[in-house]
């Protein structure tokens, strides 16, 4: 018997689909630049972000202080650079923790079904009925404002959304023939869940994760703005905007520069999210 020749079919790759619009590249470049700035903060910042100089308070932008100075004479540029560390760090760790926990719970819930699934779904529905910010606020108020508690609170707000996405995808996936094939090979539930179902739903989780990363940064800034963020004098974007808010009419640069930073990271993460969604969805129009 002659074995037929193999034909490799070349479909447009995920990378081609993702880069077609250019949004993903812009988003990635922007996000990468911000991450580099955050990492290199000690070398990039011209001043100590907490060094006060009362003689130079509320100075408008100048060559010495490109973003001006605040109420205590602290350099706003240095504070914005250092503030990006908090925003990115809190956002990243909280999103990561929320995504991991939520996805894990969602896969188990969807895969096993039954009473476990009903219980988890009911709890998820209760948690989802709180707006993200309100829940974050309640949690920080209960736990107390600190870096760890902030991360924990924001992570918890992300969990139910990821439980829901992972569960729905798992429900669809476990009916697929390859799951039956896995059973016929004598694979146990953990192997099927984590080696076979999970890799198939990871794209949806990652797309949503990038959008939730933006939401987590927004929540962190909002909590800082209302005074429930990382306690002062640590520079955070929300905190700087808040400080500037008192002098908004006299010294608008105080609030404007951290707001621009916040806006930039939001746009970058949303571009990445859209690009990833296009990459994972073959039906994206060409």
């Amino acid at each position: 018997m002659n074995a037929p020749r193999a034909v490799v079919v070349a479909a447009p790759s995920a990378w081609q689909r993702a880069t077609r619009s250019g949004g993903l590249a812009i988003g990635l470049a922007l996000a990468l630049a911000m991450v580099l700035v955050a990492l290199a903060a000690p070398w990039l910042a011209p001043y100590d972000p907490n060094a006060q100089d009362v003689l130079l308070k509320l100075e408008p932008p100048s060559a010495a202080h490109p973003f001006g100075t605040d109420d205590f004479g602290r350099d706003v540029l240095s504070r914005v650079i250092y503030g990006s560390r908090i925003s990115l760090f809190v956002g990243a760790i909280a999103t990561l923790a929320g995504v991991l926990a939520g996805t894990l719970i969602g896969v188990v819930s969807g895969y096993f079904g039954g009473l476990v699934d009903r219980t988890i779904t009911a709890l998820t529905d209760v948690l989802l009925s709180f707006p993200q910010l309100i829940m974050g606020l309640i949690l920080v108020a209960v736990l107390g404002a600190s870096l760890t508690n902030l991360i924990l609170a924001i992570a918890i707000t992300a969990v139910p959304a990821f439980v829901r996405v992972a569960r729905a995808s798992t429900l669809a996936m476990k009916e697929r023939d390859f799951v039956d094939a896995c059973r016929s090979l004598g694979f146990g539930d953990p192997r099927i869940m984590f080696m076979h179902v999970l890799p198939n739903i990871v794209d949806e989780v990652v797309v949503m994760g990038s959008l939730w990363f933006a939401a987590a940064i927004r929540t962190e800034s909002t909590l800082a703005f209302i005074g429930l963020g990382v306690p002062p004098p640590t520079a955070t974007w929300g905190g700087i905007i808040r400080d500037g808010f008192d002098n908004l009419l006299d010294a608008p640069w105080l609030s404007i520069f951290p707001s621009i930073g916040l806006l930039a990271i939001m746009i970058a993460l949303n571009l990445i999210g859209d690009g990833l969604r296009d990459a994972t969805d073959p039906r994206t129009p060409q």
Partner: protein
Amino acid sequence: MSVATARSEARADDAAESPALVVEGLTTSIRIERHWFDAVRDVSFDVHRRETLALVGESGCGKSLTALSVMGLLPAGVGRVTRGRIVVDGVEMTGASDAQVQAMRGDRIGMVFQEPMTSLNPVLPVGYQIAESLVEHRGMGNREARLRALELMELVRIPAAAERLDAYPHQFSGGMRQRVMIAIALACAPKVLIADEPTTALDVTIQAQVLALLADLQRREGLAVLLITHNLGVVASVADRVMVMYGGDVVETAPVDEFFRRPTHPYSEALLAAMPRVDRSSDSLAPIPGQVPGLPELPSGCRFQSRCALRVARCAERPPLAALADAPTHGVRCWVRAPETP
């Protein structure tokens, strides 16, 4: 010595050893709403090494449920084996713990599915998928399992196997995917292979290639194959014995030549008459009148009586599967066609 006699002698040797798969009095019930119905009734058969038993019947006759029962893969709460015993490679499957049955699956008994397009995990490379059961059942290291996966891909004649070890299922055609499925099923060198309509989803030329591959692997690996199909052409080309099921009952069982020479049960006869043939001049096929009744509506007694032209009063009583007087290996479940039974 001719090849044919060598092969038949090899068969005789295999027949002397105990069968790789024994099913005795298997009864499988499935639940429809609140009631349990016997979807497979008192089915017995055995398959020796190097032998292919074809399980034939139309949709809903119980042939796939028989396979799932043997695999221990009946959906919990919906299907269960109520009576009978299943022995795979000398190991009792009925009454064994879930963990024991799970350890047998994929190791000593493999299965090939109907749909090669959807039975592979789309996001994992095929080499990984072939190697996986070696890691799971044999505790093989990744590198060793990968080498074995390459051998298996060559065994099922996938061209340029080394370059395609890391390819994904969507890069393969249907026939190539079915070869991958066969390689996966054979990874741990099982004694028994259940092939559930393995060529139904493939086009005809590819069907022939895959069947030839299966037959070749069966000889080389000494597999016992339980082939589930509704395609009598496939049966004629690869099976050694045939078992026809209707409504959960085995209605006829015979060696393949005997079956095609002398189909005896009215249902087998009707099945063959309904098949298009090039060696027959008639223009029209003879469809079997009516439909298979749903499980709750199946008549007690002979399951086929409602569609049978030869029906007699005694058909209300369930006929036994009785051997024909002149052919001890040819069993028929019919009062009319196997009347000499007590």
